[in-house]
C-alpha cells in the first residue's frame, strides 16, 4: 500500500495548489452546498418530485477532484453525482433542468436526478445501481489505454459499494490490465441506514485494495488540500502508465441518505463532530486565516455562486417539458425500430 504521506512527498512540486486552484475549490464547494440545499428545499416544499441525493459533507472531496482532474480526464459517478458533476465542470443550468425533468436538462429531462452526465466535460455517465458504474469506468480506462492517450478515468462510488461484486471484478481487471484509472471511494461512513462497521468485514477500505495488488491510500476528505494533492498524484500516475490507484476519501454524511429522508439514527455526537468540519465554511475560514483570499474576494465568490444557483433554478423552472413525441425517441438510434414493433 502506498501511504498517503510518502505519495505526497514524492510529488510535492507537481501537486502544489495555486491560488486559482484554491479559489476554484472554494467556489465549487459553495456551488455544491447551495445547489443541493435549493434542490432539497424544492423537494421538501413538494415542488420537485425527485429522488435527490444530497452531497453534504463531500463538498471538499468533490472540489479536490475538480482541481485534480484535467479536462480530458473522464469520470463516472453514481446517483449522488451533483458534486462530482459540478466539480468536473458540467453545466449547472443543464443539471438543474435535468433534476426538474425539463427539455433543457442534460438528458432532455428523460434521465432525471440520478442520471446526470455531460460528455463535453468528461462527466461521462452516472448510474443508479450500486457499483454498476465501476466496470463502465474500467471500459473508459481501457479505451484510454488503447487510444494511447494520456488521460485518466475516475470511478466514484461510496463506501457501501465496496460490498458488491461489480466492484471486485473491476478492481481486479483494472489492476491486471494496468488501466489508467483512479478508484475514488467517497467514504461517508454510511450506506443508507447502515454504518460501515455493520456491513464491512474490514473497514480499512484502502488496505483492501492490496488484494488486487493495487496501490491505495486513504485521505481525510475534510482536508481538501491533502485530498487534491493525493488525487493529483494518483491521476498523474494513471496518465503516465503507472496504472490504477484506489483512493479512499474519508468524510462523513452531514444529512440523511436522500433529500427528504430522516437521519435520527445517526449518532448525534458523530454528526456534530463532522458538522464542525463542514467543508465550505471550514475552507473559507482557512483561506481567510492563511491570507489566500480576503473577505471581499470571498464575499464576491459567495455572491456569484448565489446568483448562479438562482439563475439555474429559474432557468430550469422556465424550461419546457419534453415534447410528447420524445417518448419513443432515443430507445434506438433509429426511431423506426420502435414504431415497427
Amino acid at each position, binding site marked *: 500500500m502506498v501511504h498517503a504521506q510518502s505519495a505526497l512527498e514524492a510529488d510535492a512540486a507537481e501537486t502544489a495548489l495555486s491560488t486559482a486552484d484554491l479559489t476554484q475549490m472554494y467556489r465549487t464547494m459553495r456551488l455544491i452546498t447551495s445547489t443541493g440545499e435549493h434542490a432539497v428545499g424544492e423537494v421538501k416544499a413538494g415542488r*420537485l*418530485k*425527485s*429522488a435527490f441525493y444530497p452531497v453534504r459533507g463531500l463538498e471538499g472531496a468533490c472540489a479536490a477532484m475538480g482541481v485534480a482532474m484535467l479536462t480530458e480526464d473522464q469520470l463516472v459517478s453514481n446517483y449522488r453525482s451533483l458534486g462530482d458533476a459540478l466539480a468536473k465542470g458540467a453545466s449547472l443550468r443543464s443539471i438543474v433542468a435535468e433534476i*426538474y*425533468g*425539463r427539455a433543457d436538462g442534460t*438528458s432532455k*429531462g*428523460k*434521465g*432525471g*436526478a*440520478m*442520471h446526470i452526465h455531460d460528455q463535453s466535460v468528461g462527466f461521462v455517465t452516472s*448510474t*443508479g*445501481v*450500486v*457499483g*454498476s458504474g465501476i466496470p463502465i469506468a474500467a471500459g473508459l480506462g481501457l479505451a484510454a489505454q488503447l487510444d494511447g492517450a494520456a488521460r485518466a478515468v475516475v470511478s466514484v462510488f461510496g463506501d*457501501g*459499494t465496496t*460490498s*458488491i*461484486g*461489480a466492484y471486485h471484478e473491476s478492481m481486479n481487471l483494472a489492476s491486471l490490465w494496468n488501466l489508467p484509472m483512479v478508484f475514488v471511494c467517497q467514504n461517508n461512513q454510511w*450506506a*443508507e*441506514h*447502515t454504518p460501515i462497521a*455493520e*456491513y*464491512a468485514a474490514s473497514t480499512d477500505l484502502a488496505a483492501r485494495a492490496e488484494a488486487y495488488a493495487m496501490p491505495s491510500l486513504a485521505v481525510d476528505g475534510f482536508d481538501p488540500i491533502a485530498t487534491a494533492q493525493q488525487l493529483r498524484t494518483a491521476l498523474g500516475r494513471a496518465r503516465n502508465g503507472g496504472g490504477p490507484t484506489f483512493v479512499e476519501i474519508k468524510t462523513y454524511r452531514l444529512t440523511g441518505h436522500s433529500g427528504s429522508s430522516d437521519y*435520527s*439514527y445517526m449518532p448525534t455526537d458523530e454528526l456534530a463532530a463532522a458538522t464542525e468540519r463542514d467543508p465550505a465554511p471550514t475552507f473559507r475560514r482557512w483561506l481567510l486565516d492563511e491570507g489566500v483570499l480576503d473577505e471581499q474576494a470571498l464575499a464576491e465568490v459567495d455572491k456569484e455562486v448565489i446568483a448562479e444557483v438562482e439563475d439555474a433554478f429559474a432557468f430550469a423552472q422556465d424550461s419546457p*417539458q*419534453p415534447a*410528447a413525441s*420524445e*417518448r*419513443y425517441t*432515443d*430507445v434506438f438510434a433509429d426511431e423506426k425500430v*420502435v414504431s415497427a*414493433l
Partner: protein
Amino acid sequence: MTTTAESTTTTSQDETTRMTMAVAMNSALDLALDGDEKVILLGEDIADPAGGVLKVTRGLSSKYGTGRVRATPISETAIIGTAIGAALAGYRPVAEIMFMDFMGVCLDQITNHAAKLRYMSGGHSTIPITIRTTVGEQRFGAQHSQSLEAWFMHTPGIKVVMPSTAIEAKGLLASCVADDDPCLFIENVRLAFSQKQEVPVGDYRIPLGEADVKRPGADLSVITYGPAVHTALATAETLADEGIDLEVVDLRTLIPLDMASVMDSVAKTRKAIVLHDATTFCGPGAEIAARITEELFGKLDAPVKRLGAGYHPAPYAPSGLSYLPTSDELADTARELLGY
C-alpha cells in the same frame, strides 16, 4: 375463482384493523416469525431503526433479534444465495431486494439456483424462500421503475405473486412464506402506503393461484393484477356512466396462473383486455392474450387487446412523459372493443 366478498382464507380471525399495505405485510412477516422459528429475514437496511425502504420490516429486528432479522451488506447475490443455502438447511428465509430493477444483479441465483434446484436434484432439494421486492416509481428514473415479472414467469420453478390490496398483500405474503417453493412477492411503492383496508389482525392466508373478480361485469373482461387493478376499477366506474359494464379480474398470482378464472370471465363477456404495468411487448399479457384467443377461438366478439408500459425505458417522472397505461387508454380501448 373467488370474489372479493368471499375471499378464500385457510385461517382467519374475526378481529380486523385498518392497515396500509405496508403494515399488512409487516403483520404477515411478524406472524410468520412468531409462528415458525425457521423463518428468517435478510436484506439491506431491513433491521431497525431503518425497518426497510418501505418500512415493511419495521420493528421486527427489535422483536425477533438481529440474528433472525438480518441487515446485510449491499450484496444482492449473497443475499439470495444465502437465502437458498439456509433454505437447504431447513430455514424459510424471506429475502428483500430493494427494487425490482436490481434483479439483474442477482438473477443467476434466482433463476439458475432457486428455481432449478428442486428439478436438478430430482426432487431432493426444497427451496422455500420468499423474495420480496418493490416496483419503484418514475420519479427515481429508468433504473428504479420496471415491472419485470415476465422474466420470472418465463423461468420455470418460481412462483410469482403481485397483490393489489392490503388484505391480499397480507394473505398472499403469508402463503408465500409458508410455501415450499421459491416465491417472488412483488410490492409496489405507490400502493404500499396508499392502499388502506380493514385487514385481519391474526394469521390469515390466501391460497396462491386463485384469481379474484374485483368487479363483476357483463360487457368486457379486464384481466389485470397489481397496481393496474386500480386503474381498471377506476375506469370501470367511468365507463359505467356510459352504460359499459367492465368485469375486472385480478390475477393476484401469475405463477400459479388461474387461467380457468380468466376463461370463465372471457367466455362470458367474449371480449378481453389484458392490462398491466409491465412492458406490453413480450409481457405477461402476451401469454394471457395468446391463451385466450387459442382456447376461445371463434368464440370472441373482438380481438384481445393488451395495454402495458410502452416500448422504452421509463422516462423520469417530472418530464411528464407517459410510461404506464392510463385509465383513459383503457377506456378508449374498451370503447373500441365494444364497437366491434
